[in-house]
């Protein structure tokens, strides 16, 4: 089993994904196996942080005091260059199809991936 690399969900400035040595599938949600073929111990890899915008939604009504302080914030789904999709934050004027690059910004007491046009 490859050690889990630290990523933004654990406070590090990194996006980590997994790549299956058996079938070649990539996955973003960490598991101890490949969800495509079931093979154990997919490889942990750091992503380049470049991606294409797939969808956006500007949140104007938040439900907790911590998130309300950031309103409005743009939730985006991006397709990473490595072939997986992920949710993140991004500039409010991002459009579907924009090429974007990641940085990291504080949000509600943690660090989150934030995409801006490349």
């Amino acid at each position, binding site marked *: 089993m490859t050690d889990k690399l630290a990523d933004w*969900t654990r406070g590090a400035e990194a996006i980590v994904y997994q790549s299956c040595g058996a079938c070649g599938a990539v996955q*973003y*949600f*960490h598991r101890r196996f490949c969800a495509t073929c079931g093979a154990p111990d997919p490889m942990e890899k750091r992503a380049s942080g470049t991606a294409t915008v*797939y*969808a*956006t*939604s*500007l*949140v*104007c*009504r*938040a*439900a*907790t005091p*911590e*998130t309300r302080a*950031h309103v*409005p*914030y743009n*939730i*985006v*789904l991006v397709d990473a260059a490595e072939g997986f*999709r*992920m*949710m*993140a*934050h991004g500039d409010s004027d991002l459009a*579907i199809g924009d090429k974007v690059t990641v940085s990291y910004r504080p*949000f*509600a007491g*943690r660090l*989150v991936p934030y995409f801006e046009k490349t």
Partner: protein
Amino acid sequence: MSFITGVGLTSYGKHEGSSSLDLMSKAAELAIADAGLKRSEIDGILCGYSTVSPHIMLATVFAEHFGIQPSYAHAVQVGGATGLAMTMLAHHLVDAGVAKHVLVVGGENRLTGQSRDASIQALAQVGHPDYEVTLGPTIPAYYGLVASRYMHEYGVTQEDLAEFAVLMRAHALTHPGAQFHEPITVADVMASKPVAMPLKLLDCCPVSDGGAAFVISRERTGATGIRVRGCAQAHTHQHVTAAPALSELGAEIAIARAKAASGVAISDVRCAAVYDSFTITLAMLLEDLGLAGRGEAAARVRAGHFGREGAMPLNTHGGLLSYGHCGVGGAMAHLVETHLQMTERAGPRQVRDASVALLHGDGGVLSSHVSMFLERVR
């Protein structure tokens, strides 16, 4: 074979002082009476969940509270698809001879039992705890993402989406039990407060108190039988991050399986009841189900196609968008309304022909789907 022999529905909106069990009991009582049965004749119970009063054994909590000792009981959790999923299970249970009369019940004091923030926060937890919820999305944001992509791929506009809110409100005006009774226009929807763009307040269903119930039986109990002709499910993902392409979503898979299970074609359908948590949900599902061409559902709304007098009356009670949404009971109101239409008891809302109906439910973020065909047998 199975029949929906009775239905019960409370008004939706505020039921100050009523618990989830109170609302479930009220709806259950109505449904059992509607079926012409006694409580003691109910030998199966399926119930949903309550976010206000979570319990690991809600079905038996309800059974004890209601005063029945069924031979089959448990809760079911498939988000917004729970009501139809329970109906599908009840159909198979009575068909297999496990039970004779299954009570399907859902109800929740979601509006007055907790704050709106608490409701929004509870529902956002359908997201991935590490990779999504930490980013502060809400349910409207999950659907807002889907909406942005759908609009991009199929040229749908915000004004198009607004048409669905206006239609559901127009239908709610004719139902005394609906949460909203003020007419709205496309301009009102467009001017309503932004929630999670492109979705604005009037693109979103409200939070409601309410309860709904049905009895599913092996034999009909009245002169008119409302038979479950066939049903099917599809579950493609849980989280929006892991959703397949728009052209591969579960609604298309579920409806194809339901058609195969029932032998019913869309051209046989006379009225429809389709999940409408947001305007985008309804627009997409109508097109996925084949009730409108891709990108054409809004034009059909404008042409009156889905109105009470139209060729395909849709959600004639006002749907989740305007009758209200109390959780599991929310989309069960669609089936109650369909039953009233099919048994010609819908009063001023009655449509011309409700002999064959299509129902569709969606749970999660277009994650779980149930399609069902009902037919009237005399």
